[in-house]
């Protein structure tokens, strides 16, 4: 389980795919693909009872009320054991001293793990790095994805080819992608520095430079996820009704203005969705900084160590599982805050727009 890496929690399709662009802009007629949102109740219309003539026996009726639970039981058993329980128990573990070699021995520590955490300068470094790498990877990724989706939405020869080719990086593992990029970014013999050298730049120190190393790590994330997000945007664009474009055209709106005033508002739920997913992915970024140079410290002076990597270092490098659990819990709170802020911002925007 765990970690699809970049944007996308684990079942990469996992958390990633189709979460819920829940609200559709009210100013748009619904696209032909009706959005199915999750909330209860909206499911299937109630099944009418079976024909009276074929009255089922009492045993059978009991089975009919019980059997649905048999269908969800396999999933929920696994879910409770390997999904929900660990998540909740993390908070509990974070209040104890637990060492990797003897995970059975737990010693009460109260908030000690947290105070130790906040006193550690490398915690703050990794928090800062997570933020800057998050911005460096998420923003270019989503902007480029939007542009590519716009182009993919045109009538094109070989469009299946373009779509598939762009998803290729998504099929690679974090580990494989990082090992290749680590080589491309090599200081003396890396291809990137060679090409930069041709135009008179460099050589850039992609390993020890703080900004440079963070750019390099972010590049891996951008490479892996841009195509994926482009397809998500493309799907959103295709559900924007063509009449809106026709109307805009009739009003003499230029193509650029159509993009600004039809495409972007129509995509808002999709954009919110991708921002949330990428934010969650960025918060737990782990494999890229770990394998970029292969060390748990994220560079000589921790210059690109992220929170995810810091957690791994504490837990499996220094054997402090309790401390690692505290970091996990901090990451969880961070995600809650970021996603909440995002939702709030999105709602404020759409209300403002509606009020105009």
């Amino acid at each position: 389980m765990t970690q699809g890496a970049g944007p996308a929690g684990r079942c990469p399709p996992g958390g990633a795919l189709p979460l819920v662009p829940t609200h559709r802009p009210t100013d748009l007629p619904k696209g032909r693909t009706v959005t199915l949102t999750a909330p209860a109740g909206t499911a299937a219309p109630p099944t009418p009872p079976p024909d009276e003539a074929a009255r089922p026996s009492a045993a059978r009726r009991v089975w009919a009320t019980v059997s649905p639970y048999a269908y969800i039981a396999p999933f929920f058993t696994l879910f409770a054991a390997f999904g929900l329980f660990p998540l909740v128990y993390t908070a509990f573990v974070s209040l104890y001293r637990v060492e990797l070699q003897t995970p059975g021995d737990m010693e009460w520590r109260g908030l000690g793990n947290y105070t130790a955490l906040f006193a550690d300068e490398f915690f703050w470094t990794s928090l800062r790095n997570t933020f800057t790498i998050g911005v460096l990877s998420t923003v270019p990724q989503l902007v480029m994805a939007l542009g590519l989706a716009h182009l993919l939405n045109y009538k094109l020869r070989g469009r299946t080819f373009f779509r598939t080719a762009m998803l290729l990086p998504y099929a690679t593992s974090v580990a494989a992608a990082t090992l290749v990029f680590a080589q491309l970014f090599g200081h003396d013999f890396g291809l990137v520095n060679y090409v930069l050298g041709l135009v008179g730049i460099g050589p850039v120190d992609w390993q020890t430079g703080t900004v440079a190393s963070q750019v390099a790590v972010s590049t891996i994330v951008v490479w892996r996820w841009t195509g994926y997000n482009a397809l998500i945007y493309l799907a959103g664009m295709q559900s924007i009704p063509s009449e809106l474009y026709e109307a805009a055209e009739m009003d003499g709106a230029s193509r650029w203005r159509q993009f600004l005033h039809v495409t972007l508002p129509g995509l808002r739920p999709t954009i919110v969705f991708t921002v949330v997913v990428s934010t969650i992915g960025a918060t737990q970024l782990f494999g890229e900084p770990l394998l970029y140079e292969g060390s748990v410290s994220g560079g000589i002076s921790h210059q690109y160590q992220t929170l995810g990597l810091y957690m791994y270092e504490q837990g499996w490098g220094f054997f402090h599982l309790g401390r690692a659990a505290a970091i996990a819990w901090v990451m969880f709170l961070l995600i809650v805050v970021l996603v909440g802020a995002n939702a709030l911002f999105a709602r404020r925007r759409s209300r403002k727009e509606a009020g105009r």
Partner: protein
Amino acid sequence: MTTRAGRTLHGGKVAYAILILAVLVSAFPFYWTIVAASRSNADLAQVPPSLLPGPNLIRNIEAVMEEADIGTALVNSLIVSGSITVGTVLCCTLAGFAFAKLRFRGRGALLAVTVGTMMIPPQLGVIPLFMVIAELSWVNQLQSVILPGLVSAFGVFFMRQFLVQALPDELIEAARVDGASTARIFWSIVVPIARPGMAVLGLLTFMAAWNDFFWPIVALSSQNPTVQVALRQLGGGYVHDQSVIMAGTLLGTLPVLLVFGLLGRQIVGGIMQGAVKG
């Protein structure tokens, strides 16, 4: 003249140029992997670098087989990803069917919990999970990766959405009237209809399981690695020959690329479909 998908593009050349550039950027690292894996370490330390494949591929593959046990890793990854895929698709189809078409107490709440946890990265539960498998002495055994891998809230939601649309209520009613049990209905009506959704979920699950990183490197070690664990070991600095590392990367990526090459179109479809339905 604007129709949705058929908007004709002025300046089409620019659009094609940008798209082709994007494809090249997407594909280049793969090409580079092949180049680097088929050369020698000395070749890679040359200026200007060589951009064409060399003759050393077989030698490098033999070396990486020896140094990182990629052979075992490939077999293990196949077992792990295969089991996770079959198990996940089965569990999710069962639960998805119940959530889509059966009525029972607590359905709404349970579905809400499932969907809610899709947003929470399971990476955050890794520590207790590790304590559990340590308690069970499962460290370094494949079931420690397989069992947690079966939990896919996304999959349940995906199958539910698929079945809500694809499976008409009348069909179930008709079967009920004919006296079919729910189990019978599931196997002879639901599964055949759910097959396209199951296929897409299976593909996505397989790729995700193959590429999963954090949990396998925690739960397994180089004694019994999956591909990603072996790659982590290769990148851990104890193999210094870059061309050997790249040979390992190539071998570890090839199986997913194969799946992607054969079924890429379905994967693209699945992702786009998922995005709209969500």
